[in-house]
């Protein structure tokens, strides 16, 4: 490895908090953000719980000072809030020309929240067409870059639910290869009718709060949010307070099915293995696994099998924090990266809510309650997506 990658800041907004402080409080108190739909206009309101950010677009805009909130997608508003917090936390000043600064952002819905409202009007030749240019995934990235003054490298990644873990991987690669010195890496996704109906049609939404790793799990709950990390090279981080190191990462493809994972969890196994190899750590060095753990039949079983294959017989504490945040799709990898770093820096492991009965095929239970630990040295975070896209990040205390 050509130099280490440090994390110097993060920002987060989700159903469990508008910023890092509120998020940590909710994690400590096991306060779930899952509840009835309030903002999204859908017929599934009464039936499908979600983890919404409990603020209107107007209120989100007021937090950022974005004046034209009606012209801005919710994906962008969420992204700006989390990205700004991350930049402030790290003391990131893109105008400092001593270092090159980039942004790698992820999203799966992009501007779909506006497209789905306006699509029929567009087809009628409606003259108010601002949102045509905000549909594609890069729009939120460029708005965030412009808001923060980032110019040296921009890109957007979309690999379904592993998207923002992949932002972190690409961001780290850019630093290792000297393309930039610092990267704001993460993702943002708002809830939309499009994704809600898509997951609903796939019959993988639980009508109650999700129960990852439980024998009687019934599916996932969708969420929304955004999270970003500030990654820096050794040189640019040298005079800063460093939160942790990104010690390893891996991406593999399950190559089995577009939406279902292979029975043996091959992709998840390979991504964890690759991340461990890169980090130089043995499985015993991992103190906590923040699982992808969506609560679907397929994911939790195959992720569990892959975890066992690598870690058994000494399986570290495992939990899915999705019963708190919901599944934030393109933001999930970064949301859970932030939660993993909080586990590292605060020496605690967050519980997997709603768990009752172990999956018969597995040999472990997830963490049931908040656990303070003397030392959390290394945390592994999994993010898996449709198209068999599997990614693993490993964060280590410095």
């Amino acid at each position: 490895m050509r130099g280490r990658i440090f994390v110097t800041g993060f920002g987060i907004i989700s159903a469990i908090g508008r910023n890092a402080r509120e998020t940590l409080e909710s994690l400590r108190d096991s306060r779930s953000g899952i509840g009835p739909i309030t903002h999204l206009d859908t017929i599934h309101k009464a039936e499908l719980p979600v983890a919404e950010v409990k603020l209107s677009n107007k209120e989100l805009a007021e937090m950022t000072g974005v004046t034209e909130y009606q012209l801005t997608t919710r994906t962008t508003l969420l992204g700006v809030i989390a990205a700004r917090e991350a930049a402030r936390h790290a003391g990131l000043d893109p105008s400092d020309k001593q270092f090159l600064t980039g942004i790698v952002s992820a999203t799966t819905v992009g501007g779909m929240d506006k497209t789905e409202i306006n699509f029929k009007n567009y087809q009628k030749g409606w003259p108010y067409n601002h949102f045509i240019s905000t549909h594609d995934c890069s729009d939120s990235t460029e708005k965030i870059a412009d808001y923060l003054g980032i110019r040296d490298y921009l890109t957007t990644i979309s690999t379904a639910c592993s998207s923002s873990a992949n932002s972190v991987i690409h961001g780290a690669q850019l630093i290792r290869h000297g393309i930039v010195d610092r990267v704001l890496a993460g993702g943002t996704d708002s809830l939309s009718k499009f994704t809600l109906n898509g997951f609903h049609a796939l019959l993988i939404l639980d009508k109650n709060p999700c129960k990852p790793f439980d024998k009687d799990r019934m599916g996932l709950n969708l969420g929304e949010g955004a999270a970003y990390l500030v990654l820096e090279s050794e040189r640019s981080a040298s005079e800063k307070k460093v939160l942790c190191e990104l010690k390893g990462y891996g991406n593999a493809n399950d190559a089995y099915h577009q939406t279902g994972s292979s029975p043996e969890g091959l992709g998840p196994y390979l991504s964890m293995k690759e991340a461990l190899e890169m980090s130089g750590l043995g499985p015993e060095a991992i103190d906590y696994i923040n699982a992808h753990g969506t609560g679907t039949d397929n994911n939790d079983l195959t992720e569990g099998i892959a975890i066992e294959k690598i870690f058994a017989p000494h399986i570290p504490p495992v939990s899915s924090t999705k019963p708190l945040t919901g599944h934030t799709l393109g933001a999930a990898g970064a949301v859970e990266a932030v939660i993993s770093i909080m586990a590292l820096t605060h020496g605690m492991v967050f519980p997997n809510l709603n768990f009752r009965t172990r999956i018969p095929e597995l040999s472990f239970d997830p963490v049931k309650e908040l656990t303070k630990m003397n030392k959390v040295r290394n945390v592994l975070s999994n993010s898996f997506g449709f198209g068999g896209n599997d990614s693993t990040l490993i964060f280590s205390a410095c």
Partner: protein
Amino acid sequence: MEAFIRGVGNISPQYTYNNAFFLEEVVPHYSIRLLSREPDYKEYINPIQLRRMSRALKMGVTAAGICLRDAEVGTPDAIITATGLGMMEDSEKFLTSILDKGERLVNPTSFIQSIHNTVGAYIAVMLKCNKYNFTYVHNFLSFESALTDTLMRLEERPSERILVGGIEGLAEEYFKITDSVGFWKKEQVESLKLLRYDSPGTIAGEGVAFFLLTKRPDPGNYALIRGVRAIYKPGDPKDIQEKIDPFLDKNKLEVRDLDLVLLGLNGDAEHDGIYHWLQENYFQENSQAYFKHLCGEHYVASSFALWLAAKVLKHQRIPQVIVLKDKGTPGKSIRNILIYNQNKNITHSLMLVSSC
């Protein structure tokens, strides 16, 4: 960071899918909507799957197959894709079905196939390729991001062979909607005369171009990619020139060493001025060519340009249909090609390609 192009697979509004040919026959389009000349997909995809696939997905999977055959590679060591709009046809289909049926009884197939990494994932399943699989979706810089990622990985893993490609399918509703708000030209257009219309807008296109990149020297290699760079919101054209100079300098080249400059001119009277300025004040001593009259404008049109550059270098021939200005010495070999593309002075990109 550099890598050889070992194989190509290109489906575009020209007959580009057969690698034995190189624009001997040029297709004129009498429309502002340039759709691909598609191959017989049955050679690459089984008929049962074929029925459920969108055009972009069919083109993507097939171009990848053509590329791998061309490179004589069975399974690549990574699959990296780029697409600005993703699987728009399936997105439109799913969105229409939700809206028309009031969110009741919708079929998930088009939802599954609407995700942006669908092509990369399909290829992975077909080839049982468990390796690295990424998808970049940053409008006109999507392909450049994918290429940057590819080159970085090859630096770390010089024995690998990576499949990288750009995918864009021009979907029905997207075309109509963007047409209604003035993305495309209003007059009757003959594509091959694209630069003669002094009007705003351009012509819509689509296409898929895949490349197999490797660090291994091989007599079958097309060309050497020596660098890629994206520029976001620069100042005036002079500022762009000041960014091209160090890009060339990094490769120990000066602007006069460029045997051909491939420009992303798209006939938009409001935005081609940047190219004109560079043509007159910076590339004035270089041979100049363009390509969007062949493939139309789309988010990964630069991948078509890279295909064009690779073929020019391999065949040592510049097809007359792309030439804007010929400054070449007859008999002199074509060594260095710079591709410069920009969109409305927001995103700009550079790719430097040389003969092997």
